């Protein structure tokens, strides 16, 4: 008998002695919503408030993003080719926006600009997926990540976002910058992923 069949046979035998099996509870999805975090207002307002709790930033125009990057000295980065014309026009000549991500020089990209599928108001979460993210590495390795998402795609709750998974093979919920508290419980941001996470809501 192969390992698979052997394991399944043993599982069956282990469960055979149970007089009855535990039932699957049919719970109300509303129970898992942190109601206090979802108010009866524009989901964008909740989103903008929650994202700050996770220490990420929300911006609503390209000029603000450009000013922030300039201020931090982050002038060279990766940009999704689809977004390039729009950003090049707004950012001006002092920025260098590359549409090819060269993995032999990851550290040359101080920022990465990619498209996101939407957001979650309840938790201030950005939803990325494989279809819209032009390069997984471009959204991950730069110090600053700018996720560009449409205002209409901010969902109210995590449950709504679960129901919206669709068929994309790689959905990532991003709630704040990369962080660790491994060393003496001290919070450090920017471990393997971005140290600065921005949602640009248009």
């Amino acid at each position: 008998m192969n390992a698979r069949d052997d394991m399944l046979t043993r599982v069956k035998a282990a469960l055979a002695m149970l007089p009855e099996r535990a039932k699957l509870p049919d719970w109300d999805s509303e129970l898992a919503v942190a109601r206090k975090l979802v108010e009866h207002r524009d989901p964008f307002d909740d989103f903008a408030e929650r994202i700050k709790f996770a220490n990420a930033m929300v911006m609503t125009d390209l000029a603000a993003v450009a000013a922030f990057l300039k201020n931090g000295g982050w002038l060279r980065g990766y940009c999704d080719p689809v977004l390039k014309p729009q950003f090049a026009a707004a950012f001006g000549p002092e920025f260098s926006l590359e549409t090819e991500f060269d993995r032999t020089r990851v550290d040359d990209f101080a920022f990465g600009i990619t498209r996101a599928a939407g957001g979650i108001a309840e938790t201030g979460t950005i939803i990325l997926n494989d279809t819209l993210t032009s390069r997984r590495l471009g959204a991950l390795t730069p110090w600053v990540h700018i996720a560009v998402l449409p205002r209409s795609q901010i969902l109210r709750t995590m449950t709504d976002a679960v129901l919206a998974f669709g068929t994309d093979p790689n959905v990532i919920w991003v709630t704040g910058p990369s962080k660790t508290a491994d060393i003496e419980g001290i919070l450090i941001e920017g471990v393997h992923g971005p140290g600065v996470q921005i949602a640009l809501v248009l």
Partner: protein
Amino acid sequence: MSASPIDSFAAHLKQETHDSVYKSTKATHEKRTKVLFDHFPDANRLREIAGEIKQHVIENLDTFLPAVEEKLRANGVQVHWAPDAEAANQAVLAIMRKRNATKIVKAKTMVSEETELAHFLEKNGVECLETDLGEFIVQIDHDHPSHIVRPIIHKSRREVAVSFEKNGLGAYNDDPNVITQRARVFLRQKYLEADVGLTGANFVVAESGRLVLVTNEGNSRFCLAATRCHIAMVGIEKILPRDRDLALLLNLLARSATAQQLTVYTEFITGPRQPTQPDGPDEMHVIFVDNGRIDVLATECRDILRCIRCGACLNVCPVYRQASGHAYRSVYPGPVGAVLSPLLAKEKFSTLADLPKASSLCGACQEVCPVNIPIPDLLLRLRDKNKRAHGPSSGTPPMGAWSVLASQPAAWKAAMALGGAINHVPRILMPGPLRKWEDYRTLPPWRGGKFRQWMKNRPAPKGKS
């Protein structure tokens, strides 16, 4: 009679380690309680429902496992089955050899700690690097994790700085920010050089075949952005029935583990990358690992298989806080480990039989458990199991003398009268077993006989002559 091993570990714990473990577990526990009960009007109901869902899963694994396998295959994932640690490790090695791969980066997975995968691969000429910061530090120190979520809770920043210096990662600097940046720079080259990324899975959803991974650092994202092949090593109990159950379990997991609303990165993976996506694996494997779980399923302690590895029971446990993780001498410390580790140890059960006894049965572990595991009940079942297998245990004073006294009133009276003498015996002159017992405990002053005295002298009840 000798002290049980966990007592000895606790007694010899460095004060510095004790204090840092105590402080940080307490702080995390308090924050957890706040974010859970502030956000949900009836958080305990959530724990109960989550517990019922997971109990349903483990009691129906015979149908869930083939169902999830079918979904995974349909999604383009190759499925492997590993009855034990050796088989799981060999499966990883076989995949690597087939691809002529020599380098693997791995995210944190407890099941790979069970199988000692990194060690196995290195022995077989594969470069295997832990990428979670805590696990990376454990690896370069040849140490063991001491907490499920916080592997280096037992280390100070000074110790980390010393091992970074020793391993050529820069001159001594104990600023956690500098340490983290050095690890960032070093590890990103390793991801980019690696052929294979290995992860665990926090959940696998039966109805969709969706693998769910949660990390704060982004290391599992990097493992799945830089490499061409993804291997997930998954314990057979990790299944959830439906996608919608995720909203509940993710809310509970983040709050219970790290007192966050949601972990920074939650990845939902159903297969190899989209054809239009330039980065990431085009080949994906899931290895379902038994390694003792099916044996646990056959016992009255099967409820422990609900565990989602959040570490909340460690943080709240008065014993873990005093003893720290290494005292449990196994992959899973704390209350969950006191149940799971002796069971997974199989024929070596007796070497860890002191763990179920290292509990005051205060019940805090069950109260915080996001899947409501009745840990105190399970600890009692294991104590019983050990008693039946081995008779009287070390660490408990013999009860024979007590039973003689308790059955003969005259002897009891005499003992009560004479017992006070023990208050005046210097420790060095005490009988051997008692002296030994006192190594880790303090005998309270003798106050025997007081009740009889009170009974005799009490005023006569009113209304009676």
